């Protein structure tokens, strides 16, 4: 059967929806989890080959949010690139800035004051908690429960955004971590408000567990679904909570600490068999760990300057450098080749969501339609980072 791509109206000449799977069996059906679908967290298209309810093949089709950031990076100066990096993984913009600034600081050999390092840790971990809350909410919606989304996303995350807004004026794209330190010092009493927030969150996390983690229907929908073994995960280059859910204990903050992470004690939650429930549980426990880190950082908050000695328009020497940060979705790396001018010659971003998404076509085979949505939700990818 010749696959005919869906042809949009003749008026518009433009890219065409290629059917990604050619041969379809006699009793099988091609289904488009299209670019616009409530559960694809944005514009990812997955072409599913269905045999009744069971999935026999799944081919994701990306590029619907490809903004060519790596080409633009070559025409932006270094400070302008920090602004661009906010918009890649728009759920944890702080970690994006941090990855880029770490690489440039290695190029410029700049010493960052301790207070700035602590601010970076507090802000990075709070952003990780906010990103995991968005995951908690949207994963609940994928499984069918609407209320957790409103509690996690609507109420608790807004308080984190208030703290960020008070500090750097923005809710999602902060542009707060700069090369050499941090944009502004924390307003007075800010760390006290952060500690109050951490206190308020403790009873709420118990409520989270009642809503989803200990909910029998939720457990029945996610345990044993979408198994990803440790060897598969390592071979695919999957990082972050998905790798830890498959049992591989690998966390940049503990194994290769950057910034001020070796001043804090925290443990790394691990999953057992790497199914949807383990991936959910690892992220849920990471919220508590991150809050522990934020609490320790706020208690031992040092004084001092907030910005190292950096020129306004700095020209890093010719050379190349690679630095990575352990973001909420995995290892967020920044590979910069500089040629001595004020614009990077080449800036490649290691996209954790893009690489984690490769696991989808392996995990999904053989599961039902409802499980595809659960597996997609548990991979927790952000399209801005997948398509860059």
């Amino acid at each position: 059967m010749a696959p005919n791509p869906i042809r949009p109206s003749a008026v518009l000449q433009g890219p065409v929806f290629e059917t990604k799977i050619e041969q379809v069996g006699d009793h099988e059906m091609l289904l488009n989890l299209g670019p616009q679908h409530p559960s694809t967290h944005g514009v990812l298209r997955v072409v599913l080959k269905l045999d009744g309810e069971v999935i026999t093949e799944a081919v994701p089709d990306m590029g619907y949010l490809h903004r060519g950031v790596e080409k633009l990076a070559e025409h932006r100066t270094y400070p302008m690139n920090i602004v661009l990096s906010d918009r890649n993984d728009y759920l944890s913009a702080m970690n994006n800035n941090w990855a880029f600034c770490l690489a440039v600081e290695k190029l410029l050999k700049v010493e960052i004051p301790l207070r700035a390092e602590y601010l970076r840790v507090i802000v990075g971990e709070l952003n990780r908690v906010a990103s995991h809350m968005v995951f908690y909410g949207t994963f609940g919606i994928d499984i069918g429960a609407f209320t957790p989304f409103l509690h996690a996303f609507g109420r608790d995350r807004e308080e984190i955004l208030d703290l960020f807004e008070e500090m750097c004026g923005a809710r999602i794209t902060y542009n707060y971590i700069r090369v050499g330190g941090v944009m502004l010092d924390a307003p007075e009493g800010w760390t006290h408000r952060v500690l109050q927030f951490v206190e308020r969150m403790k009873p709420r996390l118990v409520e989270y567990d009642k809503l989803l983690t200990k909910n029998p229907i939720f457990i029945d929908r996610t345990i044993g679904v979408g198994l990803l073994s440790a060897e598969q995960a390592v071979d695919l280059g999957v990082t972050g909570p998905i790798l830890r859910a498959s049992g591989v204990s690998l966390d940049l903050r503990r194994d290769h600490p950057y910034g001020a992470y070796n001043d804090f004690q925290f443990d790394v939650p691990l999953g057992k068999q790497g199914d949807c429930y383990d991936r959910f549980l690892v992220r849920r426990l990471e919220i508590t760990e991150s809050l522990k880190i934020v609490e320790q950082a706020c208690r031992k908050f040092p004084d001092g300057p907030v910005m190292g000695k950096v020129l306004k328009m700095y020209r890093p020497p010719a050379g190349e450098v690679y630095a990575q940060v352990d973001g909420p979705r995995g290892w967020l790396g920044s590979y910069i080749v500089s040629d001595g001018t004020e614009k990077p010659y080449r800036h490649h971003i290691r996209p954790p969501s893009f690489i984690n998404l490769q696991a989808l076509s392996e995990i999904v085979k053989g599961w039902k339609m409802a499980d595809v949505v659960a597996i997609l939700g548990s991979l927790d990818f952000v399209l801005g980072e997948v398509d860059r």
Partner: protein
Amino acid sequence: MSDGIPPQTTVAEYVGAFQAKEKRKQRSWRMAALQLVLLVIVGVVAVSLIGELDPRVRRGADLLRSLLVMGRAPAWVGVSLLLLIPALLLMLLIQVIPLFLVWWERKVAAHMQVRLGPMAVGGFHGWAQTIADAIKLFLKEIIEPDGVDKWVFRLAPMIVFVPSYLAFAPLPFGVGLVGYSFDIGLLYVLAVSGLSTVGVLMAGWGSANKFSILGGLRAAAQIVSFEIPRVLSVVPVVMWAGTLSLTGIWEAQAQPLGGWFPKWFIFYPVIGQISFLIYIITSIAETNRVPFDVPEAESELVAGFHTEYGGMKFAIFFMSEYAYVFAGSLLGAVLFLGGGSPLFPALGFIPSWAWFLGKTLALVFIFLWARWTFPRFRVDRVMDLCWKVFLPWTLINIFLTGVVLLWRGL
């Protein structure tokens, strides 16, 4: 204003306003509790003032009959009118109830989710929200995709909506307020509410959309298989009451035990609780609501079988869902909560139709409550639950009732 700069609010003013708002908030908790108690008292007083509607209805019917006799109209006019008026009143009621239920669901859902729900439309607490929705949906463009199976696509909403009308006929709303009291009222209601499966299948197949086909097939499988435990869970009630007519069942639960304890079927030691629980869960599954909303799963099948329906066709699907919810809980109120009979004889002054409405809204609240707390089952888990859990338990329940009846020597 002397130098052109508008007056700035000083910090003291700002802090003062903030503290005033905080104080108002404390008082608002006590105010809300007070208002609630006041509302209940006013409601009870108003309802008891209106009193029983049955004598008034009978007096109106006699007046009508005497008018017709005076006007020397032929006999069939009287008979048809006396049948037509209750039917029209029932139809009007069934139009209004879903409007109220949709608004109530959005408000209950919102307050469960730490937000306010419809507020701005129509002034106080957005009471006119669903009316605006209905008018807007009525005025939308009627779209028929070209690949669609024409007549199947057009008839599907009708076939889903009409049975929900039919189901209300034998359901009593109070003493004497019955559309038409059949002898086999219960069987009729359960049979008619199963008809909507045909409509759902037609909607799924008719709209030529892969998601709708999946939704339609899932709906057919779910409604048909949940029909059996729903009917079986009601059998113990019939065994105790001895009759299938709903008014008969209601009378059987009317006399309180020992003068004060209500003889409602839900208070029967083991049999009542099991059948009530299974009845409620299976009627949630019948109306395709979360946690059994597998046919129109928002996050999987976009909108299930009514993906291609917009405007008025979608409004009909939406209204029929809420009509079934109301019919299911009204039936539940009659079978298990003793219809119009008061909780304690002392509260007898509240009329029976008020009792009816209160109990039904309580059961509807359980439907709403379940929707906004539970995640969704997977298709095959729903089937397992139906065949491996509910069916055996209902059969055990019937066996228990039989044993108790034999022991009581009835």
